[in-house]
């Protein structure tokens, strides 16, 4: 039993963090360079657990949490799952189906350059080919192009139940990163911004908002590690542990993003400042592979 990253994983994390700091600044998330996806592919982050790559979900979750901290492209999630379970190379967009059922409206995120989209149909991962010219405009999450398909095209299942769990795990990893980003942004601002002749972070009322964000991050990250380990170990409780990780990571991302706006005060409400980017990303993540309560209660068939 070991729930800390090993030396190899630590070097993966620090290499990812360094690359992201240089190439993926969070406040530039609305205007990423067109060649970014090719760079992400070159770094090997688009299919780390694809057959033959010999990498575990724990390492993948660690790396994706770092990428998620910089609000990296959302198609990293769907591409990783498709690469792992369909052995399909290239970019795969992310699809959110109307109430998990075929027939209604489908929202497709991050479509430019993608040949397929992956979504969950009744909890199972499934893909559909995309029209070649499908683009999109930013919706609530200003960092991701969004397109609509109506009526929904037919989706074909890939992998077994584990493919759906894989998507939920990676979305949780992105949410943990997003929660970290909001926590750090709030703490930095609380050290910098002065009122009453001192940094606002001196005041317990502000300090404790920041502490609660830190607590949510540690709680969600710990469960993410356990959940990734459970999927790697083929643990019978993996579905529960991944659901718990997603539940806590979504809450951490949303609550921390809201806290970050509050700590920033007036500037936190503006389009110009970065806090709303985390808030809007957190809302998007909460709709990806949402948690089923019966699984959390251990009542699923």
């Amino acid at each position, binding site marked *: *039993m070991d729930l800390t*990253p090993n030396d190899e994983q630590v070097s993966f994390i620090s290499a990812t963090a360094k690359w992201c700091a240089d190439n993926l600044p969070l406040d530039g998330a609305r205007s990423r360079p067109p060649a970014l996806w090719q760079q992400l592919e070159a770094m090997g982050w688009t299919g780390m657990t694809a057959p033959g790559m010999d990498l575990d979900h724990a390492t993948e979750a660690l790396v994706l949490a770092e990428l998620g901290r910089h609000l990296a492209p959302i198609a990293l999630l769907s591409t990783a799952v498709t690469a792992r379970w369909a052995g399909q190379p290239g970019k795969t967009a992310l699809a959110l189906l109307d109430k998990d059922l075929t027939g209604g409206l489908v929202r497709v995120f991050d479509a430019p350059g993608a040949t397929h989209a992956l979504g969950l149909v009744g909890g199972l991962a499934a893909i559909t080919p995309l029209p070649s010219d499908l683009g999109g405009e930013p919706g609530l999450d200003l960092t991701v192009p969004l397109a609509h398909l109506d009526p929904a095209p037919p989706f074909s299942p890939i992998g077994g139940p584990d493919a759906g769990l894989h998507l939920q795990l990676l979305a949780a990893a992105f949410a943990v990163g997003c929660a970290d980003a909001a926590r750090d942004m709030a703490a930095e601002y609380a050290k910098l911004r002065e009122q009453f002749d001192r940094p606002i972070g001196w005041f317990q009322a502000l300090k404790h908002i920041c502490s609660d964000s830190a607590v949510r991050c540690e709680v969600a990250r710990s469960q993410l*590690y356990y959940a990734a380990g459970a999927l*790697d170990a083929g643990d019978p409780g993996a579905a529960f542990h991944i659901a718990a990780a997603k*539940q806590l990571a979504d809450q951490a991302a949303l609550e921390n993003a809201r806290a970050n706006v509050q700590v920033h005060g007036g500037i936190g409400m503006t389009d110009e400042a970065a806090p709303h980017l985390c808030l809007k990303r957190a809302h998007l993540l909460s709709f990806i592979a949402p948690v089923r*309560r019966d699984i959390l*209660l251990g009542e699923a068939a």
Partner: protein
Amino acid sequence: MDITFSPAEQQFRAECRDWLHDNVPDQRRPMDAADALDFDKAWQRRLFDAGWAGINWPTEYGGRGLSIVQQVIWLEEYANANAPWIGANFVGVNHGGPTLILNASDAQKAYHLPRILRGEAIWCQGFSEPGAGSDLAGIKTRGRIEGNELVITGSKIWTSFAHVADWQELVLRTEEGSQRHKGLSWVICPMHAPGIEVRTIRKMSGQTEFAQVFYDDVRIPLDNVVGGLCNGWKVAMSTLSFERGTGFIADQVKQSEEVEELLERARQTGALKDDRIAEQLAQLRAEVAALRAMTYRNISQVVRTGQPGAESSVIRLFTSELGQRLERMALLLAGDDILDFRYGDDNLVAEYLRGFAATIAGGTAQIQRDIIAERLLGLPKSR
């Protein structure tokens, strides 16, 4: 990262489980204080005789010298088996003993540690004072040095088990006129020394297991100072870091048992059909799982580096508040039956009322949040 236990650890788990299955007493811990003390001492002795006391304590002082992972496995099985609460041995086994291991002289360790493990010596804590709560450095209880003796005057409060304790871990001011963290010493105070008066305090749960202690020219040997004269703050903090690391694992493990019991109760009574209750139980189940993961992560960090990680201060705060959420859920499921509570009942109402201590004792939730903001996030110190 790997969530699986090694074959040797699984074997150890099986040994724990087998022994507990055969030895956990059917009798509940008695409510009467004197009976409870006898019960606690007898159970601790039984654990010691079978080799289950002080699993990660050094062998030279009666421990097993095993790994912290084995300690966790034991505590998990202990909770699974519904084994008794450690009771009056809590301070000695979980607090005083570990402080002595880190700071005491060989003679002090040789005398006290085996007695703690065998359940022969009951310890209590003497840190808080009427005027020194969250601001612990405001301690006023004094120890005047006369020859090779320390003469103690003052008062300590919120001392659990003071009326049955043999020894007290006492932090007092030994340097005349010293301020704040300087000039404090951590001493072993015999509770039967002349000049000590214990006045029990009734809690809102009806129990009288904690007290205020008064010292009127109490004379103790200067040899009872641990870790050097006027070094008491450092000694006291060494225990706090232990608490934040592994001292509360037993509570954490118990919480995962509790959430399953609550879920089962909600199923049986039909309360689970209530959306609000189902939602809260689902959340509690996720949180308890995360607490376990966070504990494992912290233990792994200790194994890897010898030190608990940054998240250990978070564990303390999260456990205490999660415990209170569980107690409130138990209350919600019980409904208006709680109105029949009377002093002397040892039930979920008593647990709920006792449970307020979790976010007050040993550093309030507000002090914990200050620590997290200052040490983890680097925000400016407000004190």
